[in-house]
């Protein structure tokens, strides 16, 4: 049974104060908070079995290796990958995307086309622009509409036999729109293009099935789903991961080294050069276990309730406009008050203990589309409450009074 008050007890940070007020944490799309269960795993690692993995013969190294590989299996099971070696540990979504972009630089030719969406985070634009500069490939963009949805009829026109890669986020970080990735993947496969889905914003809310999606690459960050920062994963279909060259050279990723030639290790180690974030990987697994124990159905149902409640309450405020009004969205509300800069609103909210994000959310093209400098973004997680939303609404009203 989903009980938010019980869940909140798992998160020590939620009981702290900010500027003399109880913390209201609505910046979950930037990073989620960490439950005691995950903190305990981190403490346990450093207290009891901290060691380098995959090479020591001693007991600690074995133990750490076992836990690390167990975490890989937890992630494999969670995303329903066929093989554990299709899960590559990375430092996060950005690292995962760069790994794939770099791999494709040896595959793409001049005139090949890459399609991205207008809703992308900078981390899913810049690596592809760099890739295009290196290879002479051309970047095309799926446009969006006023509701903050990608226009699929335009996507249909962009896709052709020249398309080699399609990159779209599962859910927009700035607006919360859930993109029709099933359709996008199917269309891309019809012309033989590979698809990478950025799941950073989706994984805190739903459970993707990479086999059912038939996606080629899927990436996620641990810190957005109750895990630690500096940890993430890349799922890649085995065939693709075998095809892509290694990203970084170093220890762990080799089979044999002589000065004449090095042969690379098998998957997944080929892409995991150097000592990884061992504790981070183990804690990532623990975070996924924690979220699954609550259940993603219960999480998304509850978060949807929060979204509807907050949308209704915020829209009662005069002059408040919400950006991103798709029917298909997660618990993210991007808004502005008429005639008031989002930075000013964010500053006043902070003084009242409410953590939101202001600015362009690393998605400047979306802000350019709406011709605004940025928005105030409140993003809710399963441990937030309607009472907290009431505090947000009261604080926005107060900010409006002070600033207009």
């Amino acid at each position, binding site marked *: 049974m989903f009980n938010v008050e019980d869940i909140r007890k798992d998160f020590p940070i939620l009981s702290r104060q900010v*500027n003399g007020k109880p913390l209201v944490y609505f910046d979950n799309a930037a990073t989620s908070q960490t439950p005691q269960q995950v903190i305990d795993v981190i403490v346990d690692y450093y207290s009891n079995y901290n060691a380098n993995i995959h090479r020591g013969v001693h007991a600690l190294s074995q133990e750490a290796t076992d836990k690390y590989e167990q975490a890989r299996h937890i992630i494999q099971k969670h995303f329903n990958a066929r093989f554990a070696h299709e899960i590559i540990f990375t430092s996060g979504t950005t690292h995962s995307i760069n790994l794939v972009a770099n791999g494709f630089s040896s595959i793409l030719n001049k005139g090949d086309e890459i399609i991205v969406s207008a809703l992308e985070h900078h981390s899913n634009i810049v690596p592809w622009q760099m890739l295009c500069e290196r290879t002479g490939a051309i970047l095309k963009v799926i446009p969006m509409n006023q509701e903050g949805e990608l226009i699929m009829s335009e996507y249909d026109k962009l896709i052709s036999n020249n398309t080699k890669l399609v990159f779209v986020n599962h859910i927009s970080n700035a607006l919360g729109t859930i993109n029709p990735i099933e359709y996008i993947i199917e269309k891309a496969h019809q012309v033989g293009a590979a698809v990478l889905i950025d799941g950073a914003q989706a994984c805190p809310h739903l459970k993707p099935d990479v086999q059912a999606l038939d996606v080629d690459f899927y990436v996620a960050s641990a810190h957005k789903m109750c895990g630690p920062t500096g940890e993430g994963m890349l799922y890649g279909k085995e065939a693709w991961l075998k095809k892509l060259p290694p990203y970084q050279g170093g220890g762990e990723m080799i089979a044999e080294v002589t000065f004449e030639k090095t042969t690379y290790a098998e998957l997944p180690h080929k892409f995991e050069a150097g000592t990884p974030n061992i504790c981070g990987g183990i804690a990532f697994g623990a975070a996924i276990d924690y979220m699954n124990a609550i259940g993603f159905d219960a999480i998304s149902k509850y978060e949807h309730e929060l979204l509807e409640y907050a949308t209704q309450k915020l829209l009662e405020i005069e002059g408040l406009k919400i950006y991103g009004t798709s029917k298909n969205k997660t618990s993210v509300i991007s808004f502005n008050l008429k005639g*008031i*800069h989002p*930075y*000013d609103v964010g*500053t*006043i909210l902070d*003084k009242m203990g409410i953590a939101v994000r*202001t*600015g362009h959310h690393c998605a400047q093209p979306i802000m350019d589309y709406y011709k605004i*400098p*940025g928005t105030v973004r409140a993003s809710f997680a399963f441990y937030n409450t309607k009472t907290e939303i009431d505090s947000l609404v009261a604080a926005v009203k107060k900010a409006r009074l*002070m*600033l207009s």
Partner: protein
Amino acid sequence: MSINDIQNEIIDEFSMFEDWEERYQYMIDLGKDLPLIEDQFKTDSNIIKGCQSKVWVHAELKDDKIFFTADSDAIITKGIIAILIRVFSNQRPKDIIESNTDFIEKIGLKEHLSPTRANGLVSMIKQLKMYAIAYQTQLN
């Protein structure tokens, strides 16, 4: 008035405020009141980078003193600018270079000094001092 005297005056004024609300309301009012810059100087080359809100700064040397004008699209940032201009405008370049900015902490705006703050108060002060250094070189 010297930079130090003005800073002390501002510290006195802020000491009368009882809480953050009064402090911020005062800055917002400062921001609302002032027409800070002529439109011809609101150019891209006068924008300070690294701010979440846009900040324009223009400087002119008259009678060996620097006169700053500035503006922002965010009102709290504008209030902060108004305070900075009151302190640093109409001063000799040398005095600006040698001045410190401890008063910001003393008037309870320390949080705006962190490099993570998106309003760019740190970049703003740096920019004002850069102008002072440039004009000082000219005067030498």
